């Protein structure tokens, strides 16, 4: 059965209008005109249904439904193609210059000296050492006397001490912390003592303030071999497994025997260069077995206990580690230097 002619006319009209709808607004207007709930054309046609004779109603109703279905289908199709066009348009405007610089989060830095301290403390923590700290203004007893520097001994002069007007002094090494630890605690003792130290020295290689880290182990049956093994383990972790370690007998009033510790030069791996004066070695540590007199002064019986101690300059290690040419650069607060360092 053919459609009633009046609906064919509407169909044509819708087709004409639909072909002209090129944007979202026109599509919306079209939808309202034809499918609007109150004034839509399809709605109008359906409302005519009641006025028709009963035998025509069925056919007319079916015809309106067919019109409605095809309008809906066409609108959906139009909607899809409009959406596709819209997406394309929006992604086109999202294009960006991927070569522009990224925005780095501003991260800060720990000081090179702090990074080296952290590393050394972690290594010794693994060997069972804990951190001990102490004051920087010290008295003669803790800085010298208890460490077996006799009064008026040349070894004192070598330390270039800063004195305060009140008679105290700025510690010349972190060894006073060892003394305080031995006085306060009973063996076994394993401590590592980082901190600022002061010597009256100021040139390209020396700063009047610098940093040391010292270690101390006291217990029953501690041997010179233990000192050697501990230092080797330390050097291998701090530098590399390939680094050679050499102990040379030396003299410090607070250890007996004493030894300087050389490592193969990290710059030339031992073949000789300007930094190591062509020796292939670099002196980085002082060490030794704790002098029995020092133990005695701290109330520890040297016939029962032995111990070893060692110390190294942190600033030197930091300079080696980060290739810092001049010790002053460590204390200038220059952010251009400080922010280059990564732990």
């Amino acid at each position, binding site marked *: 059965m053919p459609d009633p002619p009046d609906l064919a006319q509407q169909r044509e009209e819708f087709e004409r209008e639909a072909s002209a709808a090129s944007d979202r607004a026109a599509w919306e207007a079209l939808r309202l005109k034809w499918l609007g709930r109150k004034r839509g054309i399809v709605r109008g046609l359906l409302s005519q249904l009641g006025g028709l004779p009963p035998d025509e109603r069925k056919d007319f109703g079916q015809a309106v439904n067919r019109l409605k279905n095809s309008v809906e289908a066409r609108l959906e199709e139009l909607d899809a193609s409009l959406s596709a066009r819209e997406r394309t348009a929006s992604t086109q405007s999202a294009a960006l210059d991927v070569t522009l610089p990224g925005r780095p989060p501003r991260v800060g830095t720990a000081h090179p000296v702090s990074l080296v301290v952290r590393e050394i403390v972690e290594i010794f923590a693994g060997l069972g050492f804990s951190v001990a700290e102490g004051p920087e203004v010290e008295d003669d007893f803790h800085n010298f006397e208890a460490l077996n520097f006799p009064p008026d*001994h040349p070894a004192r002069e070598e330390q270039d001490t*800063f*004195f305060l007007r009140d008679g105290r002094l700025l510690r010349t090494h972190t060894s006073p912390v060892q003394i305080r630890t031995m006085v306060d605690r009973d063996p076994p003792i394993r401590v590592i003592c980082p901190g*600022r130290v002061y010597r009256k020295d100021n040139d390209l290689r020396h700063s009047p303030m610098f940093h040391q880290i010292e270690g101390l182990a006291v217990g029953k049956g501690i041997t010179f071999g233990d000192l050697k093994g*501990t230092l080797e383990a330390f050097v291998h972790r701090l530098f590399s497994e390939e680094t050679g370690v050499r102990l040379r007998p030396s*003299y410090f009033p607070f250890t*007996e025997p004493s030894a300087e510790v050389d490592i193969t030069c990290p710059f030339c791996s031992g073949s000789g260069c300007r930094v190591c004066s062509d020796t292939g070695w670099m002196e980085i540590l002082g060490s030794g077995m704790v002098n029995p007199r020092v133990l005695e002064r701290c109330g520890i019986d040297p016939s029962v206990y032995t111990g070893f101690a060692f110390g190294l300059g942190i600033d030197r290690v930091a300079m080696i580690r980060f290739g810092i040419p001049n010790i002053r650069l460590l204390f*200038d*607060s220059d952010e251009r230097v400080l922010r280059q360092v990564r732990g």
Partner: protein
Amino acid sequence: MRFSRSWLAEYVTLPESFEALANGLTGAGLAVEGSDHVGDDVLFEVDVTSNRADCMSHLGIAREVGALFGQTVEQPDLPTPGVIRIDANSWGSIEIEDPVGCPRYVGVVVRGIRVGTSPDWLKARLEAVGVRSINNVVDVTNFVLWEYGQPLHGFDADKLRGQKIVVRSARNGEALITLDGETRLLVPEILVIADGQEAVALAGIMGGRDSEVSEGTVNVLIESAHFQPTRVRNGAKALAMHTDASHRFERGSDPEACLEAALRAAGLIVDLCGGKLDPQVIDVRPDVTEPVEGEFSLEGLNAFAGVETDESFVVEHLGRLGFTLQRLFGDETAWNVQVPSWRRFDFEADPKGRVYPAYFYEEVLRMRGLDAIPSTLPAIEGPDPGLSLSHLRREELRNLLAACGLAETITYSFGSAGADSRFNGLAVGPPLELANALSEQYAFMQRSLLPNLVEGALYNLRRGAQSVQLFEFGHVFPASGSEVDSLGVILGGRLGSPWQRGLELDFFDLKGVLEMMARESGAELRFEPAALAGLIPGTAAEIHLARRGAADPVPIGYLGRVDEPESAVPLYAGEIRIEELGRGAPDEVTAPPRHPGVAVDLTLTHSLDTAWATLAVAIRELRPESLTDFEMTDRYCGEGVPAGAVNTTISFRYGAHDRSLTQDEVNEQHGRLAEALERRFKLGG
């Protein structure tokens, strides 16, 4: 200290290669630090540590070489004296007034000499060790100094008035013109050699000009004495002098070498300058020098070293080094050991006067070489104590500050006078002053970290930095009592470009960093406005730390905008004591609400005089039942806001834990809150 290989070879057979010699000495504690080949000779530098005065001579080094390489040391030939007298001879007399300062004085007279130039071999020897040739007599004394290590002095015997030597303390006001032509004013700390009238030499330091050996000298008195190290040291210090002689005496010379060295010099003078040795040698020695002794066992040595050493090695090497070993009764491998006189100052004794065994262990180990000792790790019982709290706290704070974008700096702990009084600081009392500062710039211990941080900020800004963000951990120093473990922070300037969505660092960036640190340690900070030195009025506050469950908040520091005309950008700085921060437990995690809340903003126009803290207190007081949270989200002054007022935008969040609130409920509660706030604070409303 410089040595000559060919000179050394006069006393002991050396290894073929110089390298073997250098390695041997270095391995035994006499570090060879450089060498020069000069003609047939090798001149080498040895780092002689201050305990080894015995090695400041060629014979001393030869003894070490002999022990290391199993060689016998040839001693020089000495003339035989006729009679040794204890106080006088045919020339005159020697008197020691201070036997503590001068335990021994040997005087040898050579008569009828002719002073002239030295033969080439002697000049060459001295030149090798860097000593200038003067005349044959002086050169001989210097030669013996470098041969035996015993400082000698030659007097023109005829210029000593009264044919007399007196060793005594200098008198107050006494003066002496020394060999170098300087007039020295003396004090009693200085030990002098006097003739019958006045001081003629500084004992152990330098001779006097008027009694020195000169061209016309016919009779020479050779002084070879032992002076107490401390006495020489105090004298040299009082005169600010340091000579080859004082260097050796201060480190301890060999009291037994006096006579040998004097005879050696006398023999050489007779050979080179003619003349005759006075057969009567004077050797004044008021007290007996007690030997230095101790004991040790092979077992003790092996346990100490962690390696086994043979008995024969011990006996052989200690013997060659001059130690006298005597087996202890009933024990085959333990000895009583007498220390050679040239090492007596190096070997320390226990309270009973016996040398500690560790000193003997050292001798054996340095002869073996430390390479021989195997590497082990200490077997210490007991659990590890863990890292200290203060260290961990500082590490955590350091990480946090770095994560916040700040760079750590380290600056000197000392500064100029008053540099730190610019700020309140965290250390109270007058500053500690150095007695021997390098310069005025570094003369006082800092009581505040801020002066150096401000300097650091300016350093960066002057070099074109757009912003600074620095922190430092350090001690600050009160007049008495414990040093304060402090943290200083400074920041300011424009951080980042417009592309990086830059921002101007201000007070609240600093405050935020400090608050975050406190929160990490389970505490909260309170900021009380305060007038503080060095900070611009109205921008400064004291910082108090409040810990949950603790009593009153404690003051821990301060912050504010630095009053610094040199800076192109506003700088904000603060300083806190970190021991108060502790390592508190962080807040427990609470589960987020299951029903999302509703956020409502309110912009309140109120007087600039009304502090945010006042608003916050009011909100807490009024707190509607369902208000879960509120936050200041914006502040605005300017167009559209009346003068003296500010727009504060607050974001409120409402919610219930068991259901979603309806918009009506929120509107009703928020409406009441907003109305109450506006009634109390709204300006011109």
